[in-house]
């Protein structure tokens, strides 16, 4: 509301908007540089590739989650969708003896569960926060039921190739993330669908009065988010070679935290894909830093909290009106 103002000419006034806008990027770079300087084990190809690779599934979920948040929603069920998709993938691979079909089934299952979310939200007119909280419980229960509490292990090179293999030094997971992020960014910025997502998030009533099928746009974002969780699950289950019902636990919160940390507005209508990717890797660098600096893990949560606060405080634009 209040906008205490600096002298217009001052250089602070020039720099501040830039800092606010790119807060997450600036912090990411700052942390990167700090780590590179502090330890020789950070800036190695293997380490960087590992960081990229390890967090690719989370980043894929966060990328799609960005569309959901921009459209004014919340998807708290991605973790559970991940679990179901992973478990189904393993189940299909083992029971039907077809690893490729197993891996393919994960995105399909994800998309279907996302579609169910979307339908529940738009047909029953319930807020996505609660709808996906509820569906995450249901899906989580489903994952447990499918496995009967055991894990389904898949011992097959063609099943694990997706998660563990790559092209040259670059893992498939990273490539998939790259493609998925680019496609999503393109969707958001260069297609009518993206424009609708932005408008529905910005003002659903105005969008509706402009002839946009608000419900359908919302529905698609949840479908997309489910699809992403399914793709992430295919990578994840292939990597560890076993379907476990608790595989996706907590992923949804990390993904949302990364999206918001990136600077996408929790109120919808404003945001970007690259921001969420930065958010994911900012959190990843903290983790990695602690691991390779041998720092006391007791301080890790504390540090993560402080970094998030810093990022958000930096980027906080005082809302003038």
């Amino acid at each position, binding site marked *: *509301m*209040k*906008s*205490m*103002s600096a*002298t*217009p000419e001052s250089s602070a006034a020039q720099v501040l908007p830039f800092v606010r806008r790119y807060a997450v990027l600036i912090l990411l770079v700052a942390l990167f540089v700090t780590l590179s300087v502090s330890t020789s084990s950070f800036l190695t190809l293997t380490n960087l590739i590992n960081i990229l690779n390890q967090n690719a599934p989370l980043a894929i979920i966060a990328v799609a989650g960005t569309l959901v948040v921009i459209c004014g929603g919340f998807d708290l069920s991605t973790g559970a969708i991940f679990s179901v998709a992973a478990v189904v993938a393993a189940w299909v691979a083992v029971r039907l003896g077809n690893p490729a079909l197993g891996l393919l089934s994960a995105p399909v299952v994800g998309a279907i569960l996302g579609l169910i979310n979307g339908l529940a939200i738009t047909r029953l007119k319930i807020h996505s926060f609660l709808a996906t909280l509820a569906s995450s419980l249901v899906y989580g229960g489903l994952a447990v039921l499918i496995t009967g509490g055991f894990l389904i292990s898949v011992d097959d090179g063609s099943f694990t190739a997706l998660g563990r293999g790559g092209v040259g030094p670059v893992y498939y997971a990273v490539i998939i993330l790259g493609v998925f992020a680019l496609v999503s960014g393109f969707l958001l910025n*260069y*297609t*009518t*669908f993206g*424009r*609708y997502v*932005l*408008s529905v*998030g*910005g*003002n659903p*009533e*105005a*969008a*509706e*009065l*402009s*002839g*946009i*099928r608000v419900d359908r746009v919302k529905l698609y974002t949840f479908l997309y988010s489910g699809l992403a969780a399914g793709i992430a699950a295919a990578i994840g289950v292939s990597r560890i070679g076993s379907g476990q019902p608790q595989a996706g636990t907590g992923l949804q919160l990390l993904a949302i935290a990364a999206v918001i940390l990136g600077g996408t*507005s929790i109120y*919808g*209508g*404003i945001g970007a894909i690259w921001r969420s990717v930065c958010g994911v890797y900012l959190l990843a660098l903290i983790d990695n830093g602690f691991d390779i600096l041998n720092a006391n893990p007791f301080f890790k949560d504390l540090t993560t909290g402080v970094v998030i606060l810093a990022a958000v405080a930096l980027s906080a634009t005082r809302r*003038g*009106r």
Partner: protein
Amino acid sequence: MAAAQQSVEPAVSVRDLSKRFGSTQALSAVTLSFARGEVHGLVGENGAGKSTLGKMIGGLYHPDTGELDVFGNRVRRWDIKRAQDAGVVLIAQELCLVPALTVAQNVFLGRERRTFGVLHSGLERRYQELERVCRFGLPPDVPVDRLSIADQQKVEIMRALARDARVIVMDEPTSSLTADETTRLHDIIGWLKSRGTTIIYVTHFLEDVLAHCDRVTVMRDGRVIRTADTARETKASLVEAMLGEPADMLLPERPPEPGGAPLVEMRDVYSGEAVRGVSLTVRPGEIVGLAGLVGSGRTEIARVLFGCEPADSGRIAFRGEEVRAASARASIARGMAMIPEDRRAQGLVLTRPAFENVTLPHLGGFSRMGVLARRAERAAVEELFERLGVRPRQVDGDISVYSGGNQQKVLFAKWLLGRPEFLILDEPTRGVDVGAKARIYQLIVDIATSGTGVLLISSELEEVVGLSHRVYLVRHGSLIGEVAAAETSVEVLLQRLFGVGDTPTTSTPSGNGEDQ
């Protein structure tokens, strides 16, 4: 500036006030003073800086440079709370109420009687005292989100009065009021003035300024052009000062009398409580006005026609074909368009740049297989902005900070782009400055001349009478008559709207009181 009131120290005075928003210099070195007990008009084009100045006085904005004196005291730390404690109250241009609280709760918000923080009963009584002055006839215990815009604006006025202010900045307080309500407000202003209250009155209705203000300040591009006694001004002199050039103030000539079969037809349509048996027609190229008092149901009729609200019974036809399963989307596909009355809540996506707001309903035409042709999009909008004189002119401006009038122009652009066959305009000139208004009038006439049917809802009866071919009179959700605009006048319309014999001074609760 020969003002007798200046002998005493002014209520509010500002010196060298400047304010910049990004690249926009909203105010440049404004120096101005408001005497005690005067009604001071503030006029200027859209974006001239009137609201910015008002918000600074009211404590909502802080100046970049400059000084503010209130009753002779230099203001250092200034915010809304301190301003209100000092007796300075702002009625902001954009409606701003707490939706779930009742009328009375909103009116006394922040001024509750309490003991150790525990609320006293007797809110009703306090409200009734205030109501004796205002006589708006609002139901005190209804949540404000159930009120029409006009009624919400009355709540805003009452909220300011409840603060026992010594200075009230009224930023376009009458933009959604009908004539009788406006008269009520002017009575209230007179009464406040008699008690020594200073009123800073921002409005685009120059007649009101001339009739009710002691002095008037004209602003342009963030600067003060002049301050003068209103007695020495005329409408034409004000307009010239505002625009920097003399302007033609006449309504444009009506488009030629239309012929042909009805484009749109409503037959005995009912919807909820607000629309009761409405039958009307609009022909291609025809401008049809809906005139009614506040809350009479004009907006509801328009919304039913456009498909945002379902009809319970009756028949709606477009081009002779019955409309089934109405929705805004289907209406737009048929060639209908509507500019809603609440531009911020219903019209604009404030988080997106201006041009995206314009092209939003027409993206099909700016894309191939879902991929946008952004250059074509911008080019089309640039041309429209030029034609409508939208300011700032850049098409990717941040619409949330545009002045109200310019926001309205952007909304116009949004629908003109689609060349609709039928256009519903709900309060199309609310908050629009005189220059832009003239342009919008011309636009409406041009649109109709090109064959588009127009349904025009406006609380400014001059507009309805001056532009329409025919006018329907709306009362309590029903049409009580139809007149040829060329053969009637504002006075006659008013008489009929209030019912013969009624005097236009009593405020009619107009249904909403009893309905809820």
